[in-house]
């Protein structure tokens, strides 16, 4: 490696750092003031890109000059800013007081809606953008050619940094943003109308996202996957830098830019893994990021109320469960092939949802990346069978073990955190798994996945496979349910309700949560393994964020505090999806809108609303606490 090469490499690292910073600064400012992690920030970035490839060429037709190009970029960013402000007025304003999990879900609902809207307006094919006039050439640096536009991007990042500094230090708006980031209640008590402050902040944040997106148009073809891929990177930047800190975002973007630029030389395939590794290490050493403050998410409810009264099965529940099992046992006898297929899927999803429910409802650990373990189980089973020639039986035994091993590995880091940081770390780990499965084409078949994952000869008939799935899922669910009422389960719940108090009575909170995470991951892995054989194939959608969100929706639909909840939720969700998806081209929009509606109508969770109702009829519900 000679010097000029190192310089070129670090310059290109700076260029990507610059883009990353522009986008991440928006997310972190919005979080600082509103305390909402805006999942849709990536969608705003994507929107900036699409508006850029639409508006900039129009202006270039008028006059092919750099100022016209920049004007187009600016207009695109301003429009996105307006969209952000609208989003604040229509949605965010109504959810500042709901639990964090619901905020994440609601903004993810926006992601889903924007995805379908973008496809509707711009189509599903990617759109290459125009090059920037006067910046199309290369600049020679120590005899190496370097694109002028990349240099321009570095400058743009610095301009944004300087602009934000001026805004924050020299304007009343900036002073109010900084004050509100520290103590927004006090800012209100001093007579500041938060509504406008928040709308303005969202405008600023969305503007930065849109600017980052529009600036990409000469570099990348604008496509419909930009939103999720950028949001993961931006999450990593803001988490490393510290949520709410602009300087932190800048430093973190610089580090990550260089890590990617040089990491690609050493480990071309796994730069992403390096980045996540860095994040994991930073979070272990500084749980609130480099420049973050502990108070950023302290003392806030991440979960809806109503999880505290996890009830044991009563007579009625036993009866219902008995009937349900009887119906399931009889299903292959009277049901047609389609019903059996749906039955298998519902059972598998129910196990996955139940394992997530175990984590959330019992452990208080809100995972936003549970599909990772489901997916690892599916891929483990699928790859063992197709690549290594394993039979179904050992593959099904190994699937949960492998998923559990990964859950133990990731969980080691995850259980050190809490609240929103924990949720974001689970998401980041899930994205590593996704990226590896997506990129390691030789092994995993990439986007297409692998086909030919069939059960052993004796289990090929749908009926037999149904009973096999029933046996596995029922035993796993019963085992997990049993664990809730063991000393381990009590300790886990004690840790959920008050980590400090549990610590004080001698519970090793971290270990117990780590074990719960592993157990839950293994159960999800079993579900994944069963799923791969029922589909006959594996593909990356099984690990994707939307899959994780599906699981969350199943759990919430069914209610967090009931043991039967996730099972009912899985059945309901799967039936709705199965019914509506073929009928509409806008399933995602429908789902997104439903999620948002759910959050707005039941801010305490459907579980909370239902328990309000039932508590009215049952005067004396017995909550389960620690045994006396």
């Amino acid at each position: 490696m000679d010097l000029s090469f190192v310089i070129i490499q670090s310059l290109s690292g700076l260029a990507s750092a610059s883009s990353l910073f522009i986008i991440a600064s928006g997310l972190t400012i919005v979080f600082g003031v509103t305390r909402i992690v805006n999942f849709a920030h990536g969608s705003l970035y994507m929107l900036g890109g699409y508006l850029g490839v639409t508006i900039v060429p129009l202006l270039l037709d008028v006059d092919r000059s750099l100022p016209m190009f920049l004007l187009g970029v600016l207009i695109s960013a301003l429009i996105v800013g307006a969209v952000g402000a609208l989003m604040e007025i229509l949605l965010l304003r109504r959810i500042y007081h709901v639990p964090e999990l619901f905020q994440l879900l609601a903004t993810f609902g926006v992601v889903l809606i924007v995805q379908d809207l973008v496809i509707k307006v711009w189509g599903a094919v990617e759109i290459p953008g125009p090059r920037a006039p006067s910046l199309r050439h290369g600049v020679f640096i120590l005899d190496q050619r370097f694109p002028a536009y990349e240099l321009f991007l570095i400058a743009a990042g610095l301009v944004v940094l300087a602009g934000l500094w001026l805004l924050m230090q020299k304007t009343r708006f900036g002073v109010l943003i900084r004050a509100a980031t520290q103590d927004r209640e006090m800012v209100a008590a001093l007579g500041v109308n938060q509504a406008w402050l928040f709308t303005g902040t969202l405008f600023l944040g969305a503007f930065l996202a849109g600017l980052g997106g529009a600036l990409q148009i000469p570099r990348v073809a604008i496509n419909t996957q930009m939103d999720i891929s950028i949001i993961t990177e931006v999450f990593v930047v803001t988490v490393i830098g510290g949520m709410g800190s602009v300087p932190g975002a800048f430093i973190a973007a610089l580090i990550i830019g260089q890590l990617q630029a040089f990491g690609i030389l050493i480990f071309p395939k796994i730069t992403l893994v390096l980045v996540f590794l860095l994040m994991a290490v930073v979070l272990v050493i500084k749980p609130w990021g480099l420049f973050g403050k502990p108070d950023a998410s302290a003392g806030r409810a991440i979960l809806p109320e109503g999880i505290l009264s996890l009830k044991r099965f009563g007579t009625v529940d036993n009866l219902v469960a008995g009937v349900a099992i009887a119906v399931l046992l009889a299903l292959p006898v009277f049901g047609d092939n389609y019903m059996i297929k749906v039955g298998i899927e519902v059972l598998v999803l129910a196990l996955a949802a139940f394992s997530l429910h175990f984590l959330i409802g019992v452990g208080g650990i809100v995972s936003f990346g549970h599909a990772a373990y489901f997916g690892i189980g599916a891929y483990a089973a699928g790859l063992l069978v197709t690549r290594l020639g394993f039979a179904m039986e050992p593959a099904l035994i190994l699937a949960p073990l492998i998923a559990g091993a990964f859950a133990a590995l990731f969980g080691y880091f995850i259980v050190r955190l809490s609240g929103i940081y924990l949720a974001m770390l689970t998401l980041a780990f899930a994205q590593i798994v996704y990226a590896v499965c997506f990129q390691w084409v030789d092994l995993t078949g990439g986007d297409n996945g692998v086909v030919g994952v069939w059960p052993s000869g004796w289990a090929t008939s749908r009926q037999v496979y149904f009973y096999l799935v029933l046996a596995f899922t029922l035993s796993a669910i019963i085992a997990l349910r049993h664990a809730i009422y063991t000393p381990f389960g009590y300790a886990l719940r004690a840790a959920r309700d008050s980590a400090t108090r549990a610590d004080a009575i001698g519970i090793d909170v971290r270990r117990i949560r780590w074990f719960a995470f592993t157990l839950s991951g293994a159960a999800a892995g079993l579900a994944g393994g069963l799923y791969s054989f029922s589909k006959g194939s594996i593909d990356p959608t099984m690990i994707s964020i939307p899959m994780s969100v599906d699981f969350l929706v199943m759990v919430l639909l069914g209610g967090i505090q009931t043991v039967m909840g996730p099972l009912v939720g899985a059945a309901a969700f799967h039936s709705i999806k199965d019914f509506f998806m073929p009928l509409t081209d806008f399933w995602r929009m429908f789902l997104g809108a439903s999620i948002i509606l759910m959050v707005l109508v039941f801010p305490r969770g459907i579980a909370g609303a239902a328990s309000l109702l039932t508590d009215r009829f049952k005067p004396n519900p017995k909550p389960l606490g620690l045994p006396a």
Partner: protein
Amino acid sequence: MTEPLLTIRNLSAAYGMASVLFDVSLEARRGEVVALMGRNGAGKTTTLKAIIGMVEAKAEALSFSGHDIRKLPSYRIARLGLGYVPEERRIFTDLTVQENLDVGRRPARDGREAWTLERLCAIFPNLAEMEGRRASAMSGGEQQMLTIARTLMGNPDMVLLDEPSEGLAPVIVEQMAEAVVAMKATGIAVLLCEQNLHFAAAVSDRAYVIEKGAIRFSGTMVELEANDEVREAYLTV
């Protein structure tokens, strides 16, 4: 007699399931300094927070300056001219002194003279020549002065002052007392939460005593000072 500036009738408040205030009633007239005395945990802070809408509360009446403020958000109440100085001070430590004051700035009402840095420095000499300093670099006494000054920048007609003497050196406490007197002199009413009877007696016209969330005594400051029974029962001396 005109209507009081602040009227509270049968105010009750709770944190979740735990009731903390029970039918608290009190009032303050324009330009009057009223003390709300009581031991730690008696409910003083909660009363103030209930007034400005930081904790949920029910009341038969809660009005300020002729406006019903029960349903108003904090910022609207502040804009009516009711300032709040919290016990924990809640200075914006990342901001400079000048910026802290800027956050509090609001236009003066009905042609009264607006507070400026110069006028504030006349009351709090320590704040002079500190504008550029980061608030985190200030001493406790200076932070206490800054938090009052920040509220005064909103040009309030009344200030809710929560234990301004707490944890401060006697010299600074004396300055605080002078500051309260100076505020009163400009026509600002003060509801002063205190445990320190000497401090309260030096500045207040009237006093209420609160214990376990209920008002146990109300009268002039002179009456309270003369009433050994109440003082011994509800105040630590």
